[in-house]
């Protein structure tokens, strides 16, 4: 009994409390390819039923964009440079947001994803406080679409009501469909390239790569090992699942 207890205690120190992830969904974003064109932003909006927030609410900083492009200037005119970096939920294995939700509305699943359960969320918003990347977005209102824009809504993704927190899910609906298909197809594993989140699919420069880093042959596993690879705010030890490749020099 003591040993199970000790094991349970040890499990807390493992990312997501699991001994191993069934799949470990990881994304790499190559900043040398990213041009800040924001195709990923609109693709995500279309795929995940993100609301149209409106100018008044934008003015009060209440936008909902699960992936956003951050821009950083370096230097001053005329030696000025601009760097873009897409920031989305990093699906941290040691996510600060997961420990603080009082009702377990956000938790780490066996696929290494930080999931958000909309119908469990009571809206304390502490997860957004704890997230250092500020990638969690709250539904301050119940948003509506001017008819007939709602005809476009994706039936695979729930539409959130007011009072609920939301964030990037790595297009979990696409992951689920791929896993279902793989299960039907002789109970095999999902192959590399079968799951493509909306942002990754749309990126014109192919800057984003997504896949299962448990699979050493997957493209993402190879890209992760690139010498330019780093993680944002790595020093906070959140163990993100998104690896950025630093912009190279001429």
């Amino acid at each position: 009994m003591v040993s199970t207890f000790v094991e349970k205690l040890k499990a807390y120190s493992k990312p997501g409390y699991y001994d191993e992830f069934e799949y470990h969904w990881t994304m790499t974003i190559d900043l040398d390819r990213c041009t800040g064109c924001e195709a990923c932003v609109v693709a995500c909006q279309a795929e995940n039923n993100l609301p149209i927030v409106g100018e008044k609410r934008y003015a009060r900083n209440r936008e909902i964009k699960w992936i956003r492009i951050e821009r950083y200037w370096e230097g001053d005119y005329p030696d000025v440079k601009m760097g873009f970096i897409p920031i989305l939920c990093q699906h941290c294995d040691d996510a600060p947001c997961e420990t603080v939700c009082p009702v377990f509305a956000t938790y780490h699943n066996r696929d290494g994803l930080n999931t958000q359960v909309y119908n469990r969320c009571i809206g304390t918003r502490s997860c957004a406080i704890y997230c250092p990347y500020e990638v969690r977005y709250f539904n301050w209102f119940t948003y509506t679409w001017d008819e007939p824009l709602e005809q476009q809504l994706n039936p695979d993704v729930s539409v959130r009501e007011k009072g609920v927190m939301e964030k990037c899910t790595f297009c979990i609906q696409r992951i689920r469909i791929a896993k279902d298909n793989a299960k039907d197809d002789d109970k095999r594993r999902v192959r590399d390239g079968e799951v493509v989140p909306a942002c990754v699919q749309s990126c014109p420069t192919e800057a984003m790569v997504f896949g299962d880093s448990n699979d050493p042959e997957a493209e993402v596993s190879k890209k992760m090992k690139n010498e330019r690879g780093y993680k944002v705010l790595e020093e906070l030890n959140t163990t993100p699942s998104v690896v950025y490749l630093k912009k190279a020099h001429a």
Partner: protein
Amino acid sequence: MSKISRRDLLQYIGAGGIGAVGGVLYGESIERPVELLVPQVVPPEDFSPGIATWYNTVCNQCSAGCGISVRIREGKAKKIEGNPVHPVSQGRLCARGQSGLNALYNPDRIRAPLTNAGQRGTGSFHPIDWDEALTTIGSRISRLKIEDDASRVRLLTGRVRGHLDELFAQFMDLLGSQHYQQYDFTNPSALLAANRISFGTEQLPYYDIKNADLLLSFGADYLGTWISPVHHGLAYGHMRQGRAARRGKTVQVEPRMSLSGAAADEWIAARPGTEGLLALGLAHVLVSDGHYSGSDRAEWSNALQAHSPSVVSAATDVPEDKILQLAREFASSKASLAIAGGATTAGTNAVASAVAVNALNQLAGNLGQPGGIIFNADQAFSTSPDAKPVGMQGILDLVAAMESGEVDVLLLHDSNPVFSLPDGVGFREAIDKVPLVVALSSFRDETTELADFVLPTNIYLESWGDDVPDPGVGFPVASISQPVVAKLYDTLSAGDIILSLARQIGGELPIQMSWGSMEEFVRERWRAEFDKRESDAAEQDFEEFWQAAIAAGVWGQPGATAGDQLVPSAASTIAAISDPVSEFAGSESEYPFVLHPFLTATFLDGRGANLPWLQELPDPMTSVVYGSWVELNPATADELGIEEGDVLEVVSTAGSVRVPALIFPAIRPGVVAMPVGQGHEAYGRYATDRGVNPIHIVAAQMDAEAGDLAWAATRVKIRNTGERMQVVKIGGVSRTLGRQILGPADGHA
């Protein structure tokens, strides 16, 4: 049990009866909830609920012609992706392409034909029947035809390629009018003119960015708005990190950093209007330093004599050693490519500048080479043989004709010159003189508001059609556009409207243009092409071929490149080299700043402003949403005491606008920049009365050779009105403050 009297019994029965009847009535009055819960117990035949189908078609949000795949669930379009087998988009798509769903399901779409009952321009339309509208218009045109006056009918469309173009041309031809013209603000007129001069081609060549090692862009925002952003994005990504141990370098020359400028390794802010001169300076160094070893060295040297680095440096404000270094790099790179666009090809010296850039390419010897300029093979099919005007010159001619009463009927389709041309062109006033204006349009934009009849068109997602991407991809490609959803409203595709009009007009037209619908027409045309190439095809049945083509959304012949890429001689380029001096409207003393309007990656030339997703999308360089702004250099702003949010009045010789200021680190001090796309006066709830349109204050000048608006040749002055306005943006502090966000600090620079 107590005795019940008869009276009591009757009362009980009565009460019970009333109760029962009441209950039945009440029960009948309750809405059957089942109808609300399960709308389709027996689903319709054309889709299976819960299963998505994908249809391939062509995007129409800009002129690139990317192939797209649309996901359909229960007969509704849910998501647009790039078509994986289409050579332009290759499965990828830009923000504008993704927003096509907003156009399809836009709340402000015109849902039925409208007429304004004689009160043009008041905005008061009422719906009418298709038959009534077509009869009225048809009879008007047919009367003109009978009187041999059909040249008084004019057709103005946006940029249309493919067989719809042929349909329009045939229609006008059969009518007896040669007045079919197109207008598109984003048309690279100067580039086309320069290519005509240098290479003798009518189409755009394929700029092989993918295989370049040094890409030198003079003002061309190839990643954001220039010609074919998705394809260039693919090429850029590959150029950077797609080749082992070989990373391409990019340099951007422009007075205000665009998206491509941000991606570039070097951004050079030459004086506005002098980019062409800089190109000549580089060319001079290439020749004088001995990097160019062609047989026509002497001719080149002669032509470039006056453009020594010191002279060019003084004129462009680019340091001499930078010119020398850049030239040497250009020469020594394995694959160098120079492109021109944006403000460089929008001054009064547009064509001269583009010719200068062509000269660079010729000196680099990259014509017909990988990583250089690849001339497109014969197009899959050519539609209209005559080149029709696509620039401002055409509009000026049209305006002159309208003013002098030469136009009786003006047919408009997908073009908004009232918005995207300066007021000085006089389109709005001239159109007053036209008795009948018919607009084929999906939205009530500024130009459509001036029509007498509005014939609502299908959105591209509801239409049959085809397209030949321009620029091509180096081999013949043709895309098919098919409806992905049943049309939502009482609309018709533009092609169908023309066919119906042809039937109304009568005479030769319905005989020659006998197709029942656009679908039939496209199919028939493809069959004709198919038959022509029968020997090439593998003994296929046309039906099979057609089904395969529709399923794929595209047809191509990857093997067929443009023969031996004939390398045009440089003689014509050399002859065309001139001093690309640009003129600005307004004197420098009175108007100290150069106005730099720029196409936005979100709205392009304003066409995307009615799409809420694009209004919501933060501008990539500034993160501003839902409004306009004017950008100033930080030092300039300091000098003038201007802060972000101060409302400035920007005045040119053509007019003035009031717009809030934004401090922008990457713009030349003597330049102010404003985004194009906002400032609509009509065009739906998301676009109307939002921001300002800088084209209003652009002087109506042209580069005569390009025949198009020189929108980068206006000078302005600014005045702080003292008012303040919040510039709505999501960006906070756009400096890393020493934090390792863009990557760990290097050991090396």
